[in-house]
C-alpha cells in the first residue's frame, strides 16, 4: 500500500514466474554444470579420451554463452521484477540482506571471470592442472553464490527466530535453509546431466554419445532419485501451517504432483537412455528430457512460492504487500486512508465501483485479475449478490486458497464487490441445491473433505431446521457472511444439506 501497484494486463505475477523460472533453470545449470565440466575434464584427461575432450570444449562454449547471456541477464531481470512487483518486500529484504547480496556479487564476479578464462584457455600454454584449477574456482564461486541466495529465499518462507531476535544469522540460517539447499543442489546436478545429454545429442559420434549418455545420465538419474526424498524432507521441514497448504489447496497439490511426476519421469527416461538403450539419445529425446527438467525447476519454484501463502515474508509481510503489523490499522481506518496511490479518498454511492477498482488493485491484484485471465475473480461471481460478495471479500483469509486478510473496512470490501459484480457475467445460473452449495458455501467449506467439512453437522436434521440455521448463519457464527440468497435458493440448499447429512457417518 506504500507503493503504487504496477498494473499489468495479463497479471504481473506471470512476469516474475517466467523470468524467475528461466533464470533458475539456467542459474542452477551454471552451478551443477560447473562441477560437471571440471570433473568430466579430469576424467577425459585421465583416460586420454580425445572425443570426450573435444565435446567438452564445445559444451563449455555453449555453457559460457548460455550462462552469461541468459543467466546473468535474467538474474538482473529478477531484480527489476521484484522491485516492480513487490517493492515493499524487496526493500525489506535489501535492508536486511544487502551484505549477503554483496557477498553473492563477489562470487558472481569470480564466477564470470573464471568461466571466461576457463573457456578461453582450453587449448593454450596453460597447464592441465591450472586449467582444472580455474574450473574448480568457477564451481566454488558458483556454488557459494547459491549458498548465499538460498539463505534469502529460505528466509522468505521460514523467517524463524528472526521474527523475535532480528539477527542476520537467524535470518540466514533459518528453519528451511538446509532442506532448500539440498533440494537446489540436487537440481543443479540433475540439470548438469540433462544439459550434457542435450549438447551431446548434436554429436554424430555414436560411441561418444553412448559414453556421455551413460556418464552424464548417471548424474541426472541418481540426483533425480535423491531429489524425491529431499523434496519430501523440504515439505516436512516447514512449519505445520505451510505444510498443510500442500494438502488443502488444489494448486499447491498440483504443483507438488508435477514435481513428483516430472522428477520421477526424468529419472526413468534418463535411466532408459543411460543404461538400456543409449541409441535412443537423439535431439528430440534430449529436448524432451530438458523440458522435463524445466518442469522440475518450475514446479519446485511454484511449490516454494505457494506454500508461503499468504505471505511474501512469512508472518511479516502479506503477499499483497501489507505488513502484518499494519493490518489492524488498515482494517479499521481503511485502505483509501492508508494508500498514497488512490484517486478516490472516500466512498460514495456514485464512486463506489471506481473506488472498488482502485481497492482491488491494491488488495487483490498481486494474485488476481479482475475480469479475465487465470485467477480472474469476476467470472466466478455469476449469480451472486453484492452483499454476499462483499461479505466474502471482507473474509478472504477464511476462504480456501490461502489468501491474506482483506486489508480494508467492510465498506471498502463492499466497494470491491460492486466493482467485481459490474464485471461479472450476466445471465441465469442453476438453482439446484448442489449449485447453490458450490456458489455460496464452497468458497469456505467442503462437505466431507479436509477443509472445514460441514456435511456431518447436518446429520439427522430436517430441511426446515437447516433452513432456519442458514437464515441466521451470521448470528450463529459471525465469521460467516449473512445469508443474502433467495428463498428458493435457501430451500434448495437446505434440502441438499439434509440429504448430505443423511449420508454422513
Amino acid at each position, binding site marked *: 500500500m*506504500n*507503493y*503504487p*501497484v*504496477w*498494473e499489468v*494486463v495479463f497479471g504481473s505475477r506471470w512476469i516474475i514466474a517466467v*523470468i524467475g523460472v528461466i533464470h533458475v533453470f539456467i542459474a542452477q545449470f551454471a552451478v551443477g554444470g560447473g562441477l560437471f565440466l571440471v570433473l568430466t575434464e579430469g576424467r577425459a584427461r585421465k583416460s*586420454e579420451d*580425445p572425443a570426450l575432450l*573435444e565435446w567438452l*570444449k*564445445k559444451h563449455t*562454449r555453449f555453457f559460457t*554463452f548460455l550462462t*552469461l*547471456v541468459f543467466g*546473468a*541477464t*535474467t*538474474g*538482473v*531481470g529478477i*531484480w*527489476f521484477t521484484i*522491485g*516492480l512487483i513487490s*517493492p*515493499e518486500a524487496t*526493500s*525489506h529484504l*535489501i*535492508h*536486511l540482506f*544487502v*551484505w549477503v*547480496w*554483496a*557477498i553473492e556479487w563477489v*562470487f558472481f*564476479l*569470480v564466477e564470470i571471470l573464471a568461466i*571466461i*578464462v576457463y573457456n*578461453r*584457455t*582450453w*587449448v*593454450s*600454454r*596453460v*597447464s*592441465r592442472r591450472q586449467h582444472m584449477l*580455474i574450473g574448480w*574456482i568457477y564451481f566454488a564461486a558458483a556454488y557459494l553464490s547459491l549458498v548465499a541466495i538460498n539463505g534469502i529465499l529460505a528466509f522468505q518462507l521460514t523467517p524463524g527466530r528472526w521474527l523475535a531476535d532480528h539477527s*542476520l544469522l537467524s535470518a540466514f540460517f533459518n528453519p528451511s535453509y538446509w532442506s532448500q539447499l539440498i533440494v537446489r543442489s540436487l537440481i543443479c546436478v540433475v540439470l548438469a546431466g540433462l544439459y550434457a545429454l542435450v549438447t551431446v545429442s548434436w554429436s554424430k559420434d555414436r560411441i561418444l554419445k553412448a559414453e556421455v549418455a551413460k556418464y552424464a545420465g548417471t548424474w541426472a538419474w541418481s540426483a533425480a532419485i535423491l531429489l524425491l526424498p529431499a523434496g519430501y524432507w523440504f515439505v516436512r521441514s516447514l512449519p505445520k501451517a505451510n505444510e498443510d497448504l500442500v494438502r488443502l489447496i488444489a494448486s499447491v497439490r498440483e504443483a507438488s504432483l508435477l514435481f513428483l511426476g516430472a522428477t520421477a519421469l526424468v529419472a526413468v527416461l534418463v535411466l532408459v537412455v543411460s543404461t538400456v538403450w543409449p541409441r535412443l539419445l537423439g535431439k528430440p529425446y534430449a529436448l524432451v528430457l530438458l523440458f522435463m527438467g524445466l518442469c522440475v525447476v518450475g514446479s519446485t519454484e511454484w511449490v516454494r512460492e505457494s506454500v508461503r501463502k499468504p505471505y511474501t515474508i512469512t508472518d511479516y509481510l502479506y503477499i499483497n504487500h501489507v*505488513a502484518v503489523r499494519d493490518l489492524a490499522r488498515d482494517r479499521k481506518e481503511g485502505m483509501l486512508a492508508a494508500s*498514497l*496511490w488512490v*484517486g478516490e479518498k472516500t466512498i460514495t454511492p456514485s464512486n463506489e465501483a471506481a473506488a472498488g477498482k482502485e481497492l482491488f488493485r491494491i488488495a487483490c491484484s498481486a494474485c488476481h485479475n479482475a475480469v479475465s485471465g487465470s485467477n480472474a475473480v469476476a467470472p466466478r461471481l455469476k449469480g451472486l449478490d453484492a452483499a454476499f460478495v462483499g461479505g466474502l471479500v471482507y473474509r478472504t483469509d477464511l476462504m480456501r486458497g490461502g489468501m491474506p486478510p482483506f486489508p480494508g473496512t467492510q465498506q471498502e470490501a463492499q466497494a470491491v464487490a460492486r466493482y467485481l459484480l459490474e464485471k461479472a457475467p450476466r445471465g441465469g445460473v442453476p438453482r439446484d441445491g448442489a449449485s447453490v452449495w458450490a456458489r455460496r458455501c464452497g468458497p469456505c467449506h467442503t462437505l466431507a473433505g479436509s477443509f472445514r467439512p460441514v456435511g456431518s453437522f447436518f446429520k439427522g436434521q430436517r430441511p426446515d431446521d437447516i433452513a432456519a440455521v442458514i437464515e441466521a448463519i451470521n448470528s450463529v457464527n459471525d465469521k460467516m457472511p449473512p445469508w443474502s440468497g433467495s428463498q428458493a435458493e435457501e430451500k434448495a440448499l437446505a434440502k441438499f444439506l439434509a440429504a448430505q447429512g443423511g449420508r454422513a457417518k
Partner: protein
Amino acid sequence: MITPIPPVDAIPVPAPIWFLKTLLYVTFLIHVIFMNLILGGNLLAAVFAFKGKAKHLAAARRLVVILPYVTAFAILFGVAPLLFVQVLYGPLFYTSAILLGTPFILIIPVLITAYSLMYAMARWWERLGDLRPWLSLVNLFLLGYIGFVWVNIFTLMLEPDRFKDKYLAHPGGWQLNLVDPTVLPRFLHMFLGAIAVTGLYLAIRGARRIRFEPEQGRWQFRSGATWFAGATIVNMVVGLWWLVDLPKDEMTALMGGNMFGSIALGLGLLAGLASLALALLGINSLKPGRYLWGAACALVVTLLCMIVMRDVIRDAALRTYYDVARTATHPQWGAIGLFLVLFAAAIWLSVFMLNVLKKGAPVDNGATRGPGLTDSGVHKASPAESGIRKLLPSDSGPIKAGPSTSGVHRLDDQDDQ
C-alpha cells in the same frame, strides 16, 4: 499532508551511509566505463564498417570482438550500484521504476537481444559482410534504449511531487519523463561520453600496435584520439546545456552550495580539460603512449567527479522529501567485514586468473604455434583444426609471448605486445 513518497523501511540501513555511497560511486564508475565501451564500441564499429577500408575494418573488428566480454562486466558492475541505490533511495527508486514499469522491464529482452547479437557479431564478423554496420546500428539503438529508460527513471525519481498524478493517469507504467528538460542533455552527455571513452580506448590500443603495424597503429591511435577530442569538446557544450537546465537549487549545489558538488564540478572540468589537452598533445607525439594513459587517468577522474555531481544533484533535488543522510542505520559489521575479506580474496583470485589468461593466449593458427602447448593431446596434428577459433570470439593476429599490463581488456590483447 500525506508524504508523497513511500515511508522508509522499518528495517534500518545495515551500514553507514558514507560507506554505501562510496561503494555506489566506485562500482558505478566501473559500470560506466564498461557501458561506455559497449555503446561507443557499437557506434564506432558501425561508422568504421560503413567506411569500409581495410584499416577501418581492422579497427571495427578490434572493437567488436571485445564487446561480449565488456558486456558481461558491464552487467556485473551494473548490479552492484543497482543494489546500493535501492538500499539508499528505495522509496524513490521503486516508485519511479514502477511508473516506467513497462519500458523498464523491456530492458531485459532488449539486453538479451543486444548481447546475443554482440556474441554473434564477434564470432561471425568476417562472414557478415555488408550487414556489419547495420547490425552495429541495431545494437546501438537497443543499447541506447536501455540508457534512455535509465535516464528517465533516475530523473523522474527526483520529482516525487509528480508521482501520484502520473501514476493515476496511467497505472500501467508507461510514464516516460519527457517533459523534464534535463533528460535530453543528460542522455546526450552520457552518449558523447561513451564515444569519448571508446575513442580513447581505441587510441591507446592503436598506440600499442605502432611497433608491430606502424601504419594501422598510427592511424588507429590518431583516429581514436580525434574521436575522443571531438566528442569531449561537444560534450562540454552539452554539459553546460545540462547545467543551465537544472533547477536552481540543484545548480546552486554545484556552485558553492555544496562543498563536494562544487569541488567535483571544478575538478571534473579541470580533469576533462587536462584529458583533452593530453590527447591532443598525444596526437602529434612520436611516443603517444604516456599522453594517452595520462588522458585516460584524467578521464577516470572526470567520470568520478561526474558521478559525485550526479549524486549531489540527487540529494539537492530530494532535500525537502528525503534526507538520505538521516536514514536510520544499524551497521552489520560482521557481514561487512566478511564482504570486505571475500572481496579482497576475489581481487587476488582475479589477478591470478588474468595472469593465467595472459599465459594461455588462445592459439590462432598453426604457423604461430609456439612450443610448449599442453593441450590434452587431442590436437597434436594441427591446432588449426582444433576448432578452438569457434570456442569464443577472439581477436586475430599472431600470438606473442611476453607480459602485458592491463586488466580486463587483456582478454583480447594478446596481439598487442
